[in-house]
């Protein structure tokens, strides 16, 4: 039985790959930046994640892709949209989340989710790049600064300015005229992020503010975007440690469901818990849940059976 599953998010600006084990735990992840039409980055991310996990593509029980390029990947067994995958990945990262705000390179979306990470409702930016990573990219270029610097600079804004256009091209004109009027870079960038936040608020209201909100996607790493969105929403945003891999993780977990269903259908017992525990115990010569005190850990360890029990009884305690 293969013991790992891969999820790949083939986005418009980055490619992400995640490998999970049979319990859905992240074994390795990788993010690569890409050009608009290049699939080199996706291969790079896949190769990297396999190297990190010391595994081969053939070791994957399932490979599921998502993102704009989801249909272009030969190695994927199935593909799902970003909406389905972000919902699943975000709830796996933040189980209490009921609202997912994902701002990616080319689209932004809000998703109301249930406790299983299933989509209840969703809304997406329609037609143009308003309120997306692309919007920030265009405006970073107009202001001759690096995209990565934008957030930090915007956080220094002192004055509230307004960019009313949602269209990236028209907003670019507004930004240029605000600069020509003598407004500081900081204040103009504050307004750019405020504009993204307003757009996001509109999307949130289309699905409803139904509970704790988690933000995923690359823009979640932009401090100013988070700050302005929190301000307009009036609630704090929960930020996972690695928000940019939520889609790939979701894809992997959906693949895992699928793989487990197939194993169950073919009558194979899924002994992942025991096997993983046994492997861990064997590798570390320790007991499940051990944090340095095996005697203590053993008291709280879940009941073990069969192979694992015999293996554990033979183990040499490490002090």
């Amino acid at each position, binding site marked *: 039985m293969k013991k790992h599953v891969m999820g790949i998010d083939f986005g418009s600006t980055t490619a992400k790959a995640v490998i999970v084990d049979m319990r859905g735990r992240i074994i390795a992840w990788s993010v690569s930046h890409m050009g608009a039409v290049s699939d080199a980055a996706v291969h790079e991310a896949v190769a990297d994640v396999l190297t990190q996990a010391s595994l081969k593509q053939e070791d994957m029980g399932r490979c599921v892709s998502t993102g704009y390029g989801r249909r272009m990947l030969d190695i994927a067994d199935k593909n799902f949209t970003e*909406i389905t995958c972000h919902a699943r990945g975000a709830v796996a990262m933040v189980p209490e989340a009921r609202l997912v705000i994902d701002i990616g390179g080319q*689209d932004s979306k809000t998703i109301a989710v249930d406790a299983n990470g299933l*989509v*209840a409702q*969703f809304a997406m930016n*329609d037609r143009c790049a308003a309120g997306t990573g692309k919007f920030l990219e265009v405006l970073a270029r107009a202001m001759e600064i690096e995209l990565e610097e934008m957030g930090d600079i915007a956080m220094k804004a002192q004055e509230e300015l307004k960019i009313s256009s949602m269209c990236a091209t028209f907003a670019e004109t507004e930004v240029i005229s605000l600069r020509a009027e003598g407004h500081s870079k900081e204040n103009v960038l504050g307004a750019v992020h405020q504009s993204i936040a307003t757009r996001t608020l509109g999307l949130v209201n289309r699905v409803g503010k139904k509970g704790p909100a988690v933000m995923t996607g690359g823009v979640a790493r932009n401090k100013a975007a988070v700050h302005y969105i929190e301000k307009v929403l009036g609630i704090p945003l929960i930020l996972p440690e690695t928000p940019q891999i939520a889609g790939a993780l979701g894809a992997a977990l959906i693949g895992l469901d699928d793989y487990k269903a197939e194993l169950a259908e073919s009558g194979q017992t899924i002994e992942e818990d025991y096997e993983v525990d046994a492997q861990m115990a064997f590798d570390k010569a320790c007991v499940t849940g051990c944090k340095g005190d095996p005697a203590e850990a053993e008291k709280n360890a879940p009941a073990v059976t069969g192979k694992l029990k015999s293996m554990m009884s033979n183990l040499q305690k490490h002090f």
Partner: protein
Amino acid sequence: MTPRSEIFEVLAKVCADPMGYARAWKTRTGRRVIGSFPMNFPSEMAHAAGALPLIIQEAEDPITAGHGLLFPFYCGFTRSAVDQAAKGDLAVLDAIMFGDHCVQLLGAADAVRVALPDTRVIFFQLISSMCDPWTLGRSKESFEKLRFELEDFIGEPVRDDAMRASIALFNRGRQAMRELYRMRVEGRVALTAREMQYVVKSSMVMDRAEHLELVEALVASASENLPQPEKRAVRLHLSGHFCQAPKPELLDMIEGCGAIVVGDDLYHGYRYISTDVGEEGNPMDSLARWYLDRNTGVPCPTRVQNDVDWDAFLLDAMRKESAEGMIVLMAKFCEPHMYYYPEVKEAFEKAGMPHLLIETEHESMALEHMRTRVESFLELIKRRRGVARANTPEGEVA
């Protein structure tokens, strides 16, 4: 028997160029072509007058000349109709008849009059309140006035027996198309949404006897080599789009995402063929009755019908079709639809029935973007199959 592919080739050609068909028909027969606006003109009447009744269709072309006559905030259908008039594409029509059903249509009719000063444009007022004690009488009055205008235009009376014959022919056409619908729901025929649209849309343009022959051939050939539908395909109902046919690429995209369309209430679909006209008695009485009946058969948000709700009709139709979700196709700036949609949304949320709103435009269609939304919607339905329904209401996923 004509092979199915050849039948669809003919129907598709008519749909792609309705005015081209009308020009050829006119040359062939030497008879009049009478154009009408959707959705309430009784084409039977023009047919009984010896003309080819043709419902004006939204064209593919970008709006150019029409911009000078109608504001861009009119719906795609009205702008396209005016644009076709301004470009001279409607020149083949000897007269244009229409009954008002929304403000935009009225505006468009005025603009068409300006663009085609030599074409007779006949307007008939239709009662929009469908449940009053005087509704039937008023609708009969409108149709009689229309008949009078038509007779004035052709210079001779439209005989009752000709009316009855036309009504019977149109009924047969509707029945044959409804039979195709029934067979599709029951899985006895594999028809894509595009093909279904070809069948209905072409019936709004073609010589009805010619069309009937093709549809009856389709019905007869239906059960041969029926491919089994994909097991996990989501059964969808399509709703909305009144005056214009949804773009076929959009229908292809929806089905290409893993759905099968099992029913619809589109004007270029079931709405148009839902109701027959009574064949007994006075044909004017029958037409007036038909006007009322078709709005209870498939309610239209352009009419005020207190005793039948569109949303309840949709939910009921979906139950009968075993549809798992609905895609609402809303033409941009279609006011009657915009006004009524909140009620549909609320009812669907209450019933826990998933639905997705897609706004369509004459000019552009961000198909890839729409595809992501449609796929997500279908994934939502598929992943919820078998999962115990959470308390969170499903619903609009705009």
